């Protein structure tokens, strides 16, 4: 076992800078309790709104909504601007999803230094961009969703862009097979503050510890009845054994600014109607 001693001798200096665990055992236990509660809340929330999850074989990422559906553990809904309800949904098509993907690519909204990792089931195909739209449900009350994990040296976050018709949420039900991705808000985030910037609704939830934005969501209500919503959140949700599971945040704040998201939703080409 000379090699053991040699390697230990070699590696030991690397541990000199170790200041010990940042959290006490009691704090770890509290985190475990919170994670367990959050996991349960996600499942409860999912069941309560009849979430239809496209499972497939790939990882699925949930969209953190601004809080029309809040988790049981953090039920503090923000005030959402109600979109007009007189817009008639039309059928979703793969062709229009491709058009929206092209519009997104042309908008060139991802800042340099951020990589994208596909999260939707068909995003692993080489010809499909990681951040691409796919239709959900039969009509545009379900809408089109694009979702990807954005990665930089600081960690990971989830970016979603949602284009749908301005249809009342209660028309979008499990029975109509219109999926609503409704992940619970992360326990480390406070209540969203909602403001209006340039006619766009901006919701920001800050991390309890750092005070930095852990979730930024912007929603534009366009005159033609399209709702465009872009959300970035430090949490990444993965599907584990059929259950959406929020992984611990890997970064202190989101990698995109409010302004960048506002610019994104105001780019031309995002229309619910094919």
């Amino acid at each position, binding site marked *: *076992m000379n*090699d*053991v*001693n*040699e*390697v*230990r*001798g*070699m*590696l*030991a*200096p*690397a*541990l*000199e*800078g*170790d200041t*010990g*665990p*940042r*959290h006490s*055992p*009691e704090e*770890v*236990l509290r*985190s*475990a309790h919170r*994670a*367990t509660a959050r*996991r349960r809340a996600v499942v409860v929330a999912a069941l309560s709104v009849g979430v239809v999850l496209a499972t497939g074989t790939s*990882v699925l990422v949930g969209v953190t909504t601004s809080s029309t559906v809040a988790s049981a553990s953090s039920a503090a809904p923000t005030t959402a601007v109600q979109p007009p309800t007189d817009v008639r949904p039309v059928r979703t098509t793969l062709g229009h999803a491709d058009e929206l993907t092209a519009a997104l690519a042309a908008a060139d909204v991802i800042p340099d*230094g951020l*990589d*994208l*990792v596909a999260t939707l089931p068909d995003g692993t195909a080489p010809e499909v961009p990681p951040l691409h739209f796919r239709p959900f449900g039969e009509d545009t009350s379900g809408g089109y969703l694009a979702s990807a*994990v954005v*990665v*930089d*040296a600081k960690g*990971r976050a989830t970016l979603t862009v949602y284009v749908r018709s301005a249809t009342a949420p209660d028309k979008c039900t499990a029975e109509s097979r219109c999926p609503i991705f409704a992940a619970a808000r992360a326990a480390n985030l406070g209540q969203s503050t909602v403001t209006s910037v340039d006619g766009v609704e901006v919701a920001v939830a800050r991390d309890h510890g750092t005070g930095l934005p852990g979730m930024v969501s912007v929603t534009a209500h366009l005159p033609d009845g399209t709702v465009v919503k872009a959300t970035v959140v430090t949490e990444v949700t993965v599907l584990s054994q059929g259950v959406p599971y929020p*992984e*611990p945040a*890997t970064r202190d704040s989101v990698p995109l600014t409010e302004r960048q998201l506002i610019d994104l939703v105001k780019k031309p080409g995002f229309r619910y109607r094919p």
Partner: protein
Amino acid sequence: MKDKDAEFVEFVRAKHGHVRRTAFLLCADWHLAEDLAQATLLKLYRSWSRVRRADSVDAYWRTVLVRTVIDHRRPLKSSERPVAEPPDLPAVEVEHGHGVDVQRALATLPPGQRAAVVLRYWEDLSVTQVATLLKCSEGTVKSQCAKGLAALRRALNGNLDKGGVAT
């Protein structure tokens, strides 16, 4: 339920440092190691009844940790960007001494070699145990260990000669 919490706290008190140090050796980044250790502990809490029943609790947490490290790496692998070394690194090196050299040498090892070396020599597991943990053949473990060890020796040879840290 209380028993579970009490047992878990006791486990964390006893093992958190070890889990964290092993995580660091596997990923060569203290901040990431902290997160990976925390994620590992949360997973253990979730399946505490299985931890209790395990033949070896140490083997159980090592398995969970290694999988957590691998799972963390997997989605990032194709998209990770090389990060340029900060220009003031020499100053940091002076401040922290030989440990930084070792950390950098460790970081240069491919993940497979690093995992094999850490598990085989730092954790003192058998070749069979490492192969099981990494889900590869014993031959692969042996070759990864040999290559990793040789790379570490090469990287640290000059410093060891100068500093006399190693045995």
